[in-house]
């Protein structure tokens, strides 16, 4: 075997092993790599609820209620489970019903008290006229996963 072939084999085997190692590490740490948990994760008790967690999903249609002194109450859904959330503070511009959000806070009983609310932007980009036309023709459903059924976000 020529020296350059030796080096090539060594590099290929090295990279292969490294890839396997990385895959194992990432699988093992999956719980700490995910940025947020779905209402289903919490309902099924997959998440320790005694510490701060991030809860993500879609803001349920018709669930947003402005209460006194900048407190907003709403529900987060992933299609299967729903969790009640309250938040005191200013909401991001993209926060609206049907939109994805990620909230950070603690679960107190069955109520999730959020200390931070982030809006999640989906992968759809279009001019307002196109969005209006889609809504008029009835081909529009809020939530990215319904617009692209092949790739449901809330299914995760």
């Amino acid at each position: 075997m020529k020296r350059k072939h030796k080096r090539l084999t060594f590099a290929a085997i090295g990279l292969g092993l490294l890839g396997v190692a990385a895959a194992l590490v990432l699988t093992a740490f999956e719980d700490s790599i995910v940025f947020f948990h779905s209402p289903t994760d919490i309902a099924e008790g997959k998440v320790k609820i005694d510490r701060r967690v991030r809860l993500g999903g879609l803001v349920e249609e018709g669930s947003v209620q402005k209460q006194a002194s900048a407190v907003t109450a709403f529900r987060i859904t992933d299609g299967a489970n729903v969790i009640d959330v309250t938040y005191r503070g200013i909401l991001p511009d993209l926060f609206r019903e049907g939109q994805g959000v990620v909230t950070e806070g603690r679960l107190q009983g069955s109520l999730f008290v959020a200390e931070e609310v982030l809006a999640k932007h989906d992968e759809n980009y279009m001019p307002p006229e196109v969005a209006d036309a889609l809504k008029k023709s009835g081909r529009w459903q809020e939530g990215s996963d319904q617009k692209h059924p092949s790739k449901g976000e809330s299914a995760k």
Partner: protein
Amino acid sequence: MFNYFANPRRFMKLATVLSPWLAGATIVLAAAGLYLGLFASPADYQQGETVRIMYVHVPAAWMALFCYMGLAISAAVGLIWKHPVADVAARATAPIGACFTFLALLTGSLWGKPMWGAWWVWDARLTSVLVLFFLYLGYMALNSAFDDPQRGSKASAILAMVGLVNVPIIKFSVDWWNTLHQPASIVRMDGPTIHPDMLWPLFLMIGAFTTYYLWVLMLRMRRELTETRLRARRQIQAEEAGA
């Protein structure tokens, strides 16, 4: 072909011919892409005018990965087949790729504050791109850390190849884990989810960023190859003068 252009002199000829064409293509593509992106394309139904940050952010992020692939492949060719021009290409690519990565992080942050409500979050996509930025910096630091440049290229080539593991992690982070960052809009099974009026300026900008990279790469490589030749010539002269 690798073997053919492994000869620095042949490569210099090619680079000299290509440079003006790449420069011209960059200017034309960037002018068209910026005009369409910043003025002639519609605002987004949700983000409004802020969507225009995408026309810089996406090409920069794309190039951050593209340059890293170029860097790692050149470094590997340099390490395994000992092609001198490949090492020069890897060294020339690193700072360009680092700049693209920084630009992607910066524009993403500027977009994130008004849209998400946060400048930065530690989700899988953002974190893995930050790691990519540090890989570039690490490559450059390691490459120049040795007195003997050969040892520097060897050590840094290994780092560049190890860092290749991060490339699929960046690309698929938004599919494998829950992230705040959106999933892919362009490269996906059911086709792009960006309206054509916004997709065209984006493609033009990606084209402009690519030709810009190749253009600056040619300039940087020509500079380094010329420097090496000059140094060799001076050394010969000095030896002749000494003898």
